[in-house]
């Protein structure tokens, strides 16, 4: 099993979710985050006080899938989240040691 972490632009979330559910992904976790990569921040001014805002709002998706699905999921996310402008995000893949479904007690591949 693999954990896929993807940081995408917030307005792309709905599109990505739809695309993933249509290829069979049955669960995901979404967090609102702030971050930066190549996209630099901007300046905000409040009554003459200037603040350099280095972090841009993003959305983080965390999805655990079986090894066989990984490539398809990564490609789908990359395709739907892309806007060809800087700040589109990144996708990482990590190993998952085990998984458990709380309601039934199923483990590993049966849990995802």
């Amino acid at each position, binding site marked *: 099993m693999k954990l896929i972490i993807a940081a995408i632009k917030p307005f792309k979330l709905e599109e990505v979710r739809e695309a993933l559910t249509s290829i069979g992904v049955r669960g995901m976790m979404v967090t609102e985050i702030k971050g930066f990569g190549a996209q630099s921040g901007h300046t*905000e*001014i*409040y*009554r*003459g006080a200037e*603040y350099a*805002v280095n972090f841009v709002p993003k959305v983080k998706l965390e999805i655990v899938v079986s090894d066989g699905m990984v490539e398809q999921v990564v490609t789908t996310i990359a395709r739907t989240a892309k806007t060809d402008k800087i700040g589109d995000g990144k996708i990482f893949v990590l190993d998952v040691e085990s998984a458990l479904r709380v309601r039934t007690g199923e483990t590993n591949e049966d849990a995802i």
Partner: protein
Amino acid sequence: MRNLTKIFGLSAMGGAGAMFAAMPAWAQEAATDTAAAAADAAALVPYVYEKVMDKGDVAWMTTATVLVMLMTIPGLALFYGGLVRTKNMLSMLTQVFAIVAVVAVIWIVYGYSLAFSDGGAWNSYVGGFSKAFLAGVDYNSLVATFTNGVYIPEYSFIAFQMTFACITPALIVGAFAERIKFGSLLVFVILWVTFIYFPMAHMVWWWGGPDFLAEQQTLLLIAEAAGDTAGAEAAAAALGANGLLWNWGALDFAGGTVVHINAGVAGLVGCIIMGRRVGYGKDSMAPHSLTMTMIGAALLWVGWFGFNAGSNLESNGITALAIMNTFTATAGAGVAWMFAEWLLKGKPSLLGLVSGVVVGLVAVTPASGFAGPVGAMFLGMFAGVACFLFVAYVKNMFKLDDSLDVFGIHGLGGIIGALATGILVNPALGGAGIPDYTSVPGTLQVAEYAFGKAFMAQVWAVGFTVVFVGVGSAILFKLVDWTLGLRVKEEIEREGLDVAEHGERAYNM
């Protein structure tokens, strides 16, 4: 001229109230001919008058009082609250609300008395304790307005002025937001209203009233004509038994000096003594909710109609003038700040717009019943630009952490407004003119306007206020600092005052 002598007689009774209410607010008869007045002195009888209370005036003052209360809670509380970081929102709301409650109690106990009673030997500077716990006042007690014969219940006046006493210290907290200990703040506020606010209110606004002045002036003329020097001296003393700044001829309709310069300078002193916030210049201290700030600013503008127009103590043409000025100056200042910021900083911000609006309100406060609407509008525009430049450039030059711009808006705006009052009161500029209650006792005349005299009176008043409040506040801040400590510890400042000082969060989301 002849028919004015009827006023100095029994005909002054009864119909006086109705007669004066029906007259235009500023009698336009020519200035008194002193020779004729002296000739009339032989025919003078002591000035008598009836105190007439009008339901319309009482209803208006009740409304105005409630409007000013709305300005502080929730107006000011939200205005300031939205400007601080999330972790300090609750502490800002609590500080403002608590100050209202505490000062209201003090006002009843001794505040009203110190501000608005005769202070005996100290009367030029502060009142006495004759009305502590509102002794001697009941629902039938009446106090004078600015029109001969027109009176309002003393309770109406006490309540209205109480809201002023409550909002003034609440304004100060913005200057050292996010870093003061709650307990120390309350102790400071109690000391500050006692030694600074009540005396200031007394010095600027304590006077005998139109009928009292008319009565004493008539007695003075009678005594002089009869060669009674003792009587003349007594009458002259009574005529002069007003607050210090009142006697200087300083004009302050609704509290430019008493409220805004007062709070502004105290705030400036406080933020300098307390030092800059941890992380100033590095951490983001952006407002957490400009939505709240906008709600607060809107409530301030709406409530301010009560603040300015209610300061007329009755409902007449001057009340309407104050309403007009509270529109024109405010709009002018909002527009001016917005466009100045748009031009010089690139974008028109909401915070800039509402800040400009508040500057206009502050600047017009001392002038609200004296300036004409167009003059007020230009005052607002001028103050809007001046305060924008201060807040956007000068403040940073000095690295002054006046967190919520209490000096930049209230202090500087108040100073500009107070000085401008001396210029805009000129009838030639549309102003209402300087009131004169003694040249034709029993009526309100427009005194001759002399720029030098009028403007210098304002300069002296502003100068005195700045020095008195600056030095006085510094002493009180230092006193509290040495005994209790003013500032919270650094860890608490970093964590946020809400949890550390109050055990609560503004938002549990």
